[in-house]
Structure formats: C-alpha cells, structure tokens
C-alpha cells in the first residue's frame, strides 16, 4: 500500500502531498497519509469532498501517528 509520510509537516503539506501522489495508485486503489498536524484529519476529509475521492478511515501508524486512508475514484 502506498503511504505518504508527512510527520512534522504543517498544513497544507499533507493535502499537497496527497494531491501530488494520488496519481501514483490505480483508480479504486487506496493511498494513506501519515501526518501529526492537527489540521490533517479535517483537511484530508475536505480535500476528498472537493476532489471527489472517498475518505475511507482514520487509523494509527505503529508509532501512534494518525493515518488517513483515501480511495482514488478517478
């Protein structure tokens, strides 16, 4: 699974990196962003709405960093 590491990087880096790398995965495949910025969760959800992808889930990486998983729809 493709995982983008945005630890230590403030907004809007997590959604910028997600936008840069969403094309790396096939349509209907998933991609995750690991980010500790408190804006990452709300912003990735808002990005999915604005860009018409699916926000799948918020979970945690092994080190406890929040991980946000998205399905590429187009």
């Amino acid at each position: 699974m493709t995982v983008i590491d945005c630890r230590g990087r403030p907004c809007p880096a997590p959604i910028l990196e997600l936008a840069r790398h969403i094309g790396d995965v096939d349509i209907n495949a998933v991609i995750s962003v690991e980010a500790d910025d408190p804006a990452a969760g709300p912003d990735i959800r808002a990005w999915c709405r604005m860009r018409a992808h699916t926000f799948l889930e918020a979970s945690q990486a092994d080190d406890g960093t929040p991980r946000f998983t998205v399905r590429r729809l187009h």
Partner: protein
Amino acid sequence: MLLEAATESVAESVAARADEISFAPSGALAAHAAVLGTIRGNARGVRPRFTHSAVEHSSILHAGEFAAVESVSVGVDRFARVDADAFVSAARGAAAAALQAGNHEVGTRQPVARVAEALGDVPLIVDVSQAIGHEAPPEGWSVLTADARVWGAGPGAGVLAVRTGTRWSPPFPADDRGRLPGAPDLPAIVAAAASLRAARASAAQDALRMRRQIDRIRAAVALIDDVDVLGDPVDRFPHIATFSCLYVDGEAVLTALDREGFAVSSGSSCTSSTLEPSHVLVAMGALTSGNVRVSVHPGTTDADVEKFLAVLPGVVADVRAELGASGL
C-alpha cells in the same frame, strides 16, 4: 447617573430591563460568568449537564470545561448551523444550554428563537456579540452575553444580562455591588454604550450596504479556482465573509494581503503560533488550511471591496506557486 444611562441604553438594545444588565471588564469574563453562574444556579446531581453547539466562541466552551460538568456538544451542518430539534433533545434536563445568535467565524445565524421556545425550563445562554451591533438579538434568551469590542468599542466592557426569574448564582465570592465583583470601568462602559447606540441607529442602512458588499465578495471569491465559500449564503450576519483556499498557507495569504493594506483573519493553523485549526471549521467539515475571514464595517466603501477583490486572486496564485501547488 452615567452608569444608569449606559445601562438603560444597552438594556434597550437587547430588549432587557435595566436591572437585568451587568457590565463585566471584558466579553470573555461576561461569557464565563454567564456559563458558570447559570450552571451554578441550576445544577442538580453530581455531574450536571451543559449542552452547547460545537461552534460556540471558545470563551463559552472553556467556561464549560472549567465547570467540570458533563459537556454535550451538538454538531452542526456544513453551514455551521445546529439543527434546532437535535439541540433541544440534547439539552433536555441540562443545567444550562448555550447557543450563539450566530457564528463569529462564518456569520451563519443559529435558530435561537425556535430552540428557546422548545427548551422549556432549561436556561438558554445566548452570545449575541456578533449580532448586537447590526440587528436586534434573537428572542428567548435566559442569559445573554456580549463583547463590546465586537461592536467597535474599545476593550474594557462586556455585557451580562440575566432575565428576571432565571436562576443564576454568582460564580465568585459575594459582592454587594451586584452580579460581578468590583467597581465597573465607567469610562469604558459609557463609551461602549455610546458606540452601540450609534451603531444601532444606522444599523438598518449599514446592514443593507454591508450585506451587498459581502454578497459581492462571496460571489467573486467563488470564481477563484478551488475556493470554498463558507457559511449560509442567506441566513447570516451582514458583515463577515469567510472562505478556504485549497493548497494555500493561511498565514502566507494574511501576510500578502497585509502588504496590500488589508487586515483579515484566519482560522488556519499553518504556523507554529496556532497549533490547532479553528474548531468551527472542523465542526462544519470545512477545509481548515488557506482560511481567510474578511469583515466589513460601516466605513468600508465599495471601492475598498473592489480593490480587495482585484488583488486576492493574484495573492492566492502567488502562494500556490510558492508551495509548488500550481496545476494540482
């Protein structure tokens, strides 16, 4: 005499009796006293409940946390508005409930009158800070709070109004003077009352012009690529426009607009000075980065608005280019 006149004047603006009005040294302290005193006056059982919208001003939320009650936060829709029925059922049996007249970040009005009507015995605290300079506050409040700075007065005055018959116990040691301890700051109160009277005297005309300016800003900003214009398009205060720009650092936009002579605010947390994004933007599911809040006031001209709209697209494009986000 001066204090009496100021009290009468403010009371009239919020449809209260003079003896229902107290002045606090700040809007924050008025809000704290509203929440703590209402909970104290109505608490039953070990952990009384305090129900509030998810988008209240932080001074209301912090007072609830401080009171160590069971806080129930009622979520909002994408415009930042609570559902009146959902709010009422969450507030049933609570010691106190708090619902702002409208939101301080996106301007959306809340269904205060509908909630108040259905709430029964639960006292409703209404923060009217954003409304009071522009329009008559909504009816139905048990306890009202306002920050005079928001209607354009200097610092040093907040309003606390407690409706006759509402149980409110002072959250401070007893003081003979009234609900709040200490002597009031008379010059600040007189100035605040005078500026409120002036604002309300021309409010109907001013609000029409400001609403037209805000509608113009909302329509023009919506044409910029990847910008979300926030808040209810119609049922809103006349003076605030808020939007979030994708792939933009809110702080960078603020700095660039400041260089052009425009002072705006942001609910973003793109800098180290603000660690958390705005709880209002999070609650409404809005993009928190690249957030910009524009306020107009009675002195704002249409030419000011047009100049702002002329520079904004370039500012947003420059910030996106610096972040390497162009074309994403």
